């Protein structure tokens, strides 16, 4: 039977692991709550911006250059904005979003399209560099509560690439936050913008200052930015809840392991005592 000292050492180390995972769970829980409260905060802006964009897009007087931003052109090259985390230890969080990315890329290539990726987060970048190095740009070390200040370089890269014809279509792949135990990787089209039906609240006729193009440009940029921001926030909320659940499972598993090890330890201890007793009894019997 395993010796008792060995088992005692294992119990101690598993206990330490459970303390670490428990602490990580608590940290993730706090970060998740913060990120969760941000998830809905971009909605009013996105709503207004998409209404204004769609409205201007429908104006007959708009010149052809602007059309390029919203109208579908023949697609040859596809851009993907891949949002992942910088860190691991979050259960299936990273692998789920990467699996979707891989299948999406296969799909697009099967259609004969070229694919390039702009990554946010170290995990996605590392994975791409290892298996499929088509990284166009990379962004890392995003803060836990990103602002427009953090996402505006990303939006700039995407819009510039789109306008210069590097990409004909741009998609964003990120993990959508459904609830604490459910997160789903999704693909969404970022550019060209597909006009939605503006709500009836928009007036029929606007004065433009300085010009429809200038307003459109500004809103388009803001809208793309807010969509990137939203993807980032959702991904962060998902990451922390995935990590929280993973760490809770790890803590539970560690506690189970401690229980079963304690049982083994007690058995071994008892066996040792029994053996010793038998030795003593055997000794006295032999003496008689």
């Amino acid at each position, binding site marked *: 039977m395993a010796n008792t000292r060995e088992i005692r050492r294992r119990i101690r180390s598993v206990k330490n692991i459970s303390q670490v995972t428990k602490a990580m769970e608590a940290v993730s829980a706090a970060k998740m709550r913060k990120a969760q409260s941000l998830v809905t905060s971009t909605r009013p802006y996105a709503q207004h911006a998409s209404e204004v964009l769609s409205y201007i897009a429908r104006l007959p007087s708009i010149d052809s250059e602007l059309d390029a931003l919203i109208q579908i052109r023949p697609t040859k090259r596809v851009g993907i904005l891949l949002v992942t985390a910088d860190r691991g230890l979050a259960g299936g969080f990273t692998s789920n979003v990467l699996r979707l990315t891989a299948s999406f890329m296969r799909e697009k290539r099967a259609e004969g399209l070229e694919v390039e990726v702009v990554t946010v987060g170290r995990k996605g970048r590392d994975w791409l560099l290892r298996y499929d190095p088509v990284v166009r740009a990379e962004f890392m070390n995003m803060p836990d509560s990103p602002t427009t200040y953090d996402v505006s370089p990303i939006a700039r890269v995407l819009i510039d690439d789109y306008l210069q014809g590097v990409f004909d279509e741009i998609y964003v792949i990120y993990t959508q936050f459904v609830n604490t135990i459910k997160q789903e990787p999704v693909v969404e089209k970022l550019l060209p913008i597909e006009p939605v039906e503006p709500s009836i609240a928009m007036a029929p006729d606007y004065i433009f200052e300085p010009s429809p193009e200038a*307003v459109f440009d500004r809103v388009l940029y803001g809208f793309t930015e807010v969509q990137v921001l939203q993807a980032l926030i959702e991904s962060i909320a998902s990451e922390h809840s995935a990590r929280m659940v993973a760490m809770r499972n790890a803590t539970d598993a560690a506690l189970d392991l401690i229980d079963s090890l304690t049982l083994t330890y007690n058995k071994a201890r008892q066996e040792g005592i029994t053996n010793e007793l038998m030795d003593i009894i055997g000794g006295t019997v032999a003496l008689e």
Partner: protein
Amino acid sequence: MTIQVDIVTPERMLFSDEVDMVTLPGSDGQMGIMAGHAPLLSTLDIGEIMLHRGNEVEYIAVGGGVVEVRPDKVNVLADVAEYAEEIDIERAEAALQRAKESLASNIPAERRPVMAAALRRSSLRLKVARHRRRRRERPSFDGG
């Protein structure tokens, strides 16, 4: 007659209430808007938004964006915006100093517009933040 004003930034809903008049930094100049204004879509410059309610005026610093005006409603889509009360004066002063120094020194030409914008933003912040001080002093003054 009041007009509903919503000020949103990508990060949050900053303001949503009825006011008598709102003054905005349009890219073609300052504009005051009251209820019944003709529909208008305009870009915004870096500047201050003034919300007039009775005798009170509320100040918001805005760093560019777009405004949509309807007869009964004003939607401001701001890139960044903050209340005068929220402005960190020390930080704004430090940023202003930094921007001034780097503009005075030999920085690469492509960095110049960035620093010039930073200079405008921080000096605007300080200007808007001053309104807060003035407003705070007033109640005790009236009381005396």
